[in-house]
């Protein structure tokens, strides 16, 4: 006797109710995603509509001015680029070094665990606190003044926890089997780390660094706190010069009364977003290209 695939009535009714719940849940999740994307889209469209007409080469070559027609982001862009460069230079070695120590050499003691917990916490500290720290330590105590050096040191502190966490993850992803093979050949710990851990952790570390820099590029409050100005009318010549950055310039323009400055601010936002997009794309590209498939 052939058995029918259809079960009895009770089962079918209950099945119908389960399928309905599944469809509802799918719908609700879809609505949540759509809402998020819609809000983002509205923001982007608004910025593009306001800012695109003001996106001219002029914007990159001119200094800020009282007159919207003459105003540009020259000093802000220089400041941002200098700051990212210096921040990366300072935070990368310290961050990677810390991660190597914590993963490879640190003994499993209370002190180590205490440090580990606090590094994760530091990533969540409000950035203005870093600004205050930078003001007291770099600007005043170390006498660096309101220079881009002081700003970069402050930002380096801010992004350090992010880099350390990313580097540790990357180092941990290297399989134990490869480490054991290296040690079994009579390698010292450092020889193993240098030849078999670091090269394979590099893509992950790089990605983490670029993402950390993306965070740094958008920070405004800590840099205002250490004294980055809003009106710089000359080129940045060295690390001890005073400076401004893109978000601060945008913020300054938004606060000015003339309508045109609002549009200029929108144009600045477009540039900032474009920079972020490039950096994140670079991070993803590098991660995909350089990753080893174990």
């Amino acid at each position, binding site marked *: 006797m052939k058995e029918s695939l259809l079960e009895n009535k009770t089962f079918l009714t209950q099945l119908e109710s389960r399928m309905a719940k599944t469809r509802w849940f799918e719908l609700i999740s879809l609505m949540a995603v759509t809402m998020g994307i819609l809000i983002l889209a509205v923001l982007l469209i608004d910025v593009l509509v306001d800012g695109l007409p003001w996106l001219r080469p002029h914007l990159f070559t001119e200094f800020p001015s009282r007159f919207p027609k003459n105003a540009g982001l020259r000093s802000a862009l220089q400041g941002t680029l200098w700051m990212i460069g210096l921040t990366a230079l300072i935070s990368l070695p310290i961050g990677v070094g810390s991660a190597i120590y914590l993963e490879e050499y640190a003994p499993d003691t209370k002190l180590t665990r205490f440090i580990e917990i606090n590094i994760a916490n530091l990533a969540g500290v409000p950035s203005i606190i870093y600004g205050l720290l930078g003001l007291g330590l770099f600007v005043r105590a170390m006498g660096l003044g309101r220079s881009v050096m002081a700003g970069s040191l402050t930002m380096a502190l801010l992004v350090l926890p992010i880099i350390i966490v990313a580097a540790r993850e990357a180092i941990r992803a290297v399989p134990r089997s490869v480490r054991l093979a290296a040690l079994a050949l*009579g390698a010292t710990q450092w020889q193993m780390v240098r030849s078999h851990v670091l090269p394979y952790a590099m893509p992950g570390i790089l990605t983490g660094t670029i993402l950390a820099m993306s965070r740094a590029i958008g920070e405004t409050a800590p840099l205002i706190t250490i004294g980055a100005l809003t009106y710089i009318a000359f080129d940045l010549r060295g690390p001890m010069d005073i400076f401004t950055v893109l978000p601060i310039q945008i913020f300054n323009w938004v606060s000015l009364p003339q309508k045109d400055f609002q549009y200029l601010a929108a144009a600045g936002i477009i540039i900032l977003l474009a920079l972020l997009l490039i950096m994140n794309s670079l991070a993803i590209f590098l991660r995909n290209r350089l990753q080893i498939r174990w």
Partner: protein
Amino acid sequence: MENNHFVLSVHNLNVWYGDFRALKEVNVNIPEKKITAIIGPSGCGKSTFLRCFNRMNELVPSCKTEGEILLHNQNIYSEDINPVIVRRRVGMVFQKPNPFPKSIYENVAWGIKINGLNNGSSKSFLDDLVEHSLRQAALWDEVKDKLHQSGLSLSGGQQQRLCIARAIAIRPEIILMDEPASALDPIATLKIEELMREISREYTIIVVTHNMQQAARVSDFTAFFTMDEDRAGFLMEYGDTTQIFTNPKEKLTEDYITGRFG
């Protein structure tokens, strides 16, 4: 038993992982340039015992070792001996092939370079060493035209032979093998066993295996480990392979070999 020269001597070896005793009072001598197999049921400390010879157990923080292992009458566990030196003399091949994600050439050359074995010599000296090791591992003909391809591009059996080439490149005295063929197909397994016989002319081999037929085929001497009530592993019987498999002295050995438990 013939009058073999013993290269390794184990005295009163005990190993703990935290509070759990994994190995109890092991005493055994390992003959030089022969193949010694370590057999026994799962969990009786065979791999732990193997890792004692190159001090790899120390990489587990909770592991404590007591007793001595003499290599040419020097205790490898003495305070003033750096484990790095021990591992130079006692090589290891792991259960799952683990070549470095580097080129085949670099896989073999790395061990030579970090131990400074080619210091001051020309590149062709290193090339010769790499070729020699790959020949000894019966892999040269298969890879000589693709030395710069990744080690991971080889088949499982080839990868394991690459790991063997890598281990013998630094000319250790002893090679430890932890179930070297268990992750491989039967043909690759046979090749590994052939290789083991070949290289045992120059190296002392200690191999852990779950495969009793393999132990009987390949080894000269066999050590049978088992567990006692508190799950600590100990050496039940040790002897000539032929004797162990045809005329074991202990009942438990006989039970294991005939498959009554495992």
